[in-house]
């Protein structure tokens, strides 16, 4: 007997994978190639443990310990003139080794340099909030909490920022389906009408190409419209596409093209 191979999800897989495939990476350079970054890194190394550092696309990337982050950003801001936190968020590596990579993109206006502070945390761990150093981190950390479920310690208002407070799930996780899980699919129905209304309202239709001329609940055939819910037989009377009734409307004059004066002189 031949071994059974499932044939229902052939389309979902790529038919060819390279066994020795290595994802392309932007080339890395030594930090010593840039003297400004080399001086900054030396100052940083004197106070904190630096795990890895390199330059990519003209920006220095520094890996540090997770619990050093407040001190490192304070040092960068006050001593090394990296006064702006451009962006911060997380990267989902849960499938690879059950970790999140957190990054903080910093900008120094005086040195005209950008550097990125990075560290890893395990799933379920929290990061230290830098909201008291950079006000912009307030919303960034809330967004990180919203999208990844990573909490920030000592944050003044650790709540969801984009999604409603009673939402379940973290949409930027790679395990979250784009079209939403069951909670997301029924969110508005459950919240407004209750769970028992699911049968009445029905599931979401997400097939954008769906056209059904026999479904008069959802579709109308142009020129052959019928009242909602009518059974379509195919012998519908054509509807005249008209904005006003034939017999005219009370106190409203019907526009007739023949009786109107057409001004064809542009220099009138």
């Amino acid at each position: 007997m031949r071994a059974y191979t499932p044939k229902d999800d052939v389309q979902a897989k790529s038919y060819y994978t390279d066994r020795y495939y290595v994802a392309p990476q932007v080339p890395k350079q030594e930090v010593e190639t840039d003297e400004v970054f080399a001086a900054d890194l030396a100052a940083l190394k004197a106070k904190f443990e630096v795990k890895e550092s390199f330059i990519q696309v003209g920006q220095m990337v520094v890996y540090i310990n997770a619990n050093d982050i407040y001190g490192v950003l304070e040092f960068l801001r006050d001593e090394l003139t990296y006064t702006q936190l451009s962006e911060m968020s997380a990267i989902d590596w849960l499938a690879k080794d059950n970790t999140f990579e957190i990054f903080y993109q910093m900008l120094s206006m005086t040195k005209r340099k950008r550097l990125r502070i990075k560290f890893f945390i395990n799933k379920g761990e929290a990061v230290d909030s830098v909201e008291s150093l950079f006000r912009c981190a307030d919303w960034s950390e809330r967004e990180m909490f919203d999208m990844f479920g990573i909490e920030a310690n000592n944050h003044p208002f650790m709540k969801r920022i984009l999604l409603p407070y009673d939402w379940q799930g973290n949409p930027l996780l790679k395990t979250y389906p784009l079209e939403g899980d069951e909670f997301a699919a029924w969110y508005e129905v459950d919240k407004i009408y209750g769970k028992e209304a699911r049968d009445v309202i029905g599931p979401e239709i997400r097939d954008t190409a769906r056209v059904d001329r026999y479904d008069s609940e959802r579709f109308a055939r142009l020129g052959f419209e019928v009242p909602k819910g009518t059974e379509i037989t195919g012998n519908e009377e054509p509807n005249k596409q008209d904005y006003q009734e034939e017999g005219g409307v009370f106190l409203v004059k019907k526009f007739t093209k023949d009786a109107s004066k057409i001004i064809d002189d542009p220099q009138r």
Partner: protein
Amino acid sequence: MAQHKVNYTQDGGLPVALTSIDKIVNWGRSNSIWALTYGLACCGIEMMASGASRFDFDRYGTIFRASPRQADVMIVAGTLTKKHAEFIKRLYDQMTEPRWVISMGSCANTGGMFNTYATVQGCDRVIPVDLYLPGCAPRPETLQYGVMLLQKKIRANKAGNAQKPKRLM
């Protein structure tokens, strides 16, 4: 002095027009459809253009109101997110009957291109809709035509108190 002379000798010598209650009520209703200012996304820009001088909604007696309690028609102009769904229901409930809903544009009709977790796939999942306007975004002419079709729909119905309230549930 009045510029227009009133001709008292026509129409049987009386300055009157005879009609039925239904017609006169529907005439009033259909020619004063006050719309709720409800621009949710880019369709809202087209809705604003329809109200402005070039397209001029005032000709139909359609004036935008900032309160649902003064509005007759809700023009859902734009993407309805799941976070906002409870508020559209609340605004709809605050409107006085008879009330109508125009779903304007692909997003309000079906969710449009936002095939995501955060978008309601058609605002008719939350409130009953009278008129669906296709387009992304529909031109102001489409919205004007939609309002005229809504006027036609209002005229076609009985004006009495026994009007069947529309309920999604």
